[in-house]
């Protein structure tokens, strides 16, 4: 959907996180409202990696941050296990956030420059009183497992490269035994040779620590590499969501096709559908928010918000003029 609906959601019993009708708005200039995320519903199963892609300003980071209530969403329900995170009080939320950890785009600014690597990683277990579980020996093992030589544990972040700082940030997150790791553009600031190191590391750690991941990136090749499922966002709404192979091999939404064709060497033909500028989230277009840049748009696109339609076993798109045939239950 650059639209609405929740038909893409799976049975609650199968999912770890279920996000329903999530809306995040910020106050804009002169009384206006920035509609960052509008009525978005999706879910994540345990052990799964959900890739979130889209251009800057599409709401991908805001969506992920709204799950951990940073900031609190304007409306909507975020169910993690059995609790609605939007209704938790401060103390409950603090406790819950140890389960949902995050790593960031700029690995250097994500670390306190005045503290040693050892202090940075040990702080979490200290606060939560898990030092008996996270003994010195285990923390050393953790530091080693992310590829940092423990003999440098007393060094400070500026003495490490960007790639090494990202490894330290990952260790800091893992020291809280999280169940979910939210990766917000974790390799965008890294050199290509280091990017592959971090992607392989995340893959290893996901298996080792049984992690569920939300992986946000503007780099489609990276998302293709790591994701089981993919969610394509446009201007605060979901355009297409489902199995990664299904979406990358047979994109249905014109926006997904346009995005794929922009990747150098993707082999996807550029049909020139992505014309014009990204509209402002202060005043998003009516109907399907993509209609102003879509070459297939008709009158209905400007008036009616499209709902999710099913295009495969796990493939949903919200478009009035999809480049594929919807399936009915009988087809499956």
């Amino acid at each position, binding site marked *: 959907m650059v639209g609405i609906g929740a038909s893409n959601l799976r049975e609650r019993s199968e999912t770890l996180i279920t996000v329903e009708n999530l809306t995040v708005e910020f106050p804009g200039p002169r009384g206006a409202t920035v509609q960052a995320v509008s009525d978005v519903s999706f879910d994540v199963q345990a052990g799964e990696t959900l890739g979130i892609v889209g*251009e*800057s300003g599409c709401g991908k980071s805001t969506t992920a941050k709204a799950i951990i209530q940073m900031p609190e969403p304007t409306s909507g329900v975020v169910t993690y296990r059995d609790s609605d995170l939007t209704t938790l009080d401060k103390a409950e939320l603090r406790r819950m956030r140890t389960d949902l950890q995050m790593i960031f785009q700029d690995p250097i600014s994500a670390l306190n420059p005045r503290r040693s690597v050892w202090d940075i990683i040990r702080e979490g277990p200290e606060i939560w009183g898990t030092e008996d579980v996270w003994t010195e020996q285990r923390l050393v093992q953790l530091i080693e497992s992310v590829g940092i030589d423990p003999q440098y544990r007393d060094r400070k972040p500026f003495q490490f*490269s960007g*790639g*090494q700082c990202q490894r330290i940030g990952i260790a800091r997150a893992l020291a809280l035994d999280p169940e979910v790791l939210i990766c917000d553009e974790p390799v965008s600031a890294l*050199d*290509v*040779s*280091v*990017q*592959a*190191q971090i*992607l*392989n590391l995340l*893959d290893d750690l996901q298996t080792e620590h049984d992690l569920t991941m939300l992986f946000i990136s*503007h*780099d*489609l*090749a*990276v998302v*293709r*590499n*790591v*994701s*089981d499922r993919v969610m394509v966002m446009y201007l605060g709404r979901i355009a297409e969501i489902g199995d*990664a*192979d299904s979406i*990358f091999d047979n994109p249905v939404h014109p926006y997904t096709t*346009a*995005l*794929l064709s*922009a*990747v*150098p*060497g*993707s*082999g*996807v033909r*550029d049909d020139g559908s*992505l014309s014009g*500028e*990204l509209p402002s989230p202060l005043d998003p277009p009516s109907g399907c928010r993509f209609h102003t840049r879509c070459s297939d748009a008709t009158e209905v696109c400007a008036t009616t918000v499209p709902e999710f339609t099913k295009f495969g076993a796990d493939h949903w798109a919200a478009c009035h003029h999809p480049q594929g045939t919807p399936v009915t239950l009988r087809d499956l």
Partner: protein
Amino acid sequence: MALLEVRDLAVTFSTANGPVYAVSDVSFSVERGAAIGIVGESGSGKSVTVKSLMNLLPSSAKIDGTATYDGLDVFNLEPSRRKHFYGVDVAMVFQNPMTSLNPVKRIGEQLTEGMRFHRKLSRGDATARAVELLDLVRIPDPAKRLRQYPHELSGGMRQRVVIAMALANDPALLIADEPTTALDVTVQRDILDLLDGLRRDLDMALVLITHDLGVVRDRTDDIVVMYGGRVMEGAPTEDLFANTVHPYTHALRSSIPNMSMPRGTRLSPIPGSPPDLAIAPTSCPFAPRCTHVTDACRTALPATKTLDSGASGHTYACVNPQLGEV
């Protein structure tokens, strides 16, 4: 004769902790109207190389070697010639358009400044030319844009304005340093296509600097691959991909995920970290990270050799070249 000929360029910065050997033994040439790509990671010396040509390095930089532009010695220009060299013969576009533009001046004022200074155009003529330029870089409603400030434009539009500024005095050579790195993929393609089209239409040579081999693959005639301040491999673009020789180029290519890889494909990262440029280069800078390293790699600098097979002009600096698939 090539439009730009760089020979044995070396740039050393003197710092409080001793010299930093940012660029060493770099040679390449750019033909009139041609496009070359300089590819490398951070610290490879790609930006320092072009900044030395543009006279943009701090005074702590010591430049050796020669650079000849159309018969002129770029590093020893007459002051009167230099005044009308940068921004006229050679222009440059940078990574972040917001820092290239003055946030408190209108687009029109910034766009006409260079023309009025170099060509002594009147305000009216310069404004007319500015409208033409914005039209050339496909900015809709150019007259309105001239009255706007940079913050009123999107990132892609700002980079178009910066490109228009660079084109103002019809340069024969445009240097673009990571012009699309700060932009979304969709905008990236538009800007790259724009640069490619302008180069052909205006018969202007282009030096495109990037960390992304994919960006230069379809848009350049030649590619120079740099690492640790040195040229690892240089070749006509097609030949570089068809007959990759240098282990670093191989490693760079295989470490990048691409859309045709099935999900979960294990990537082949380059182990280790980039080289410390404070150590004087006496051996191959890639040797500590190279999977094909030999004893000879660690004891002497590899000589630059020419590949016998494939297209002419394919050079590499490696004692243990790996031809074909690795």
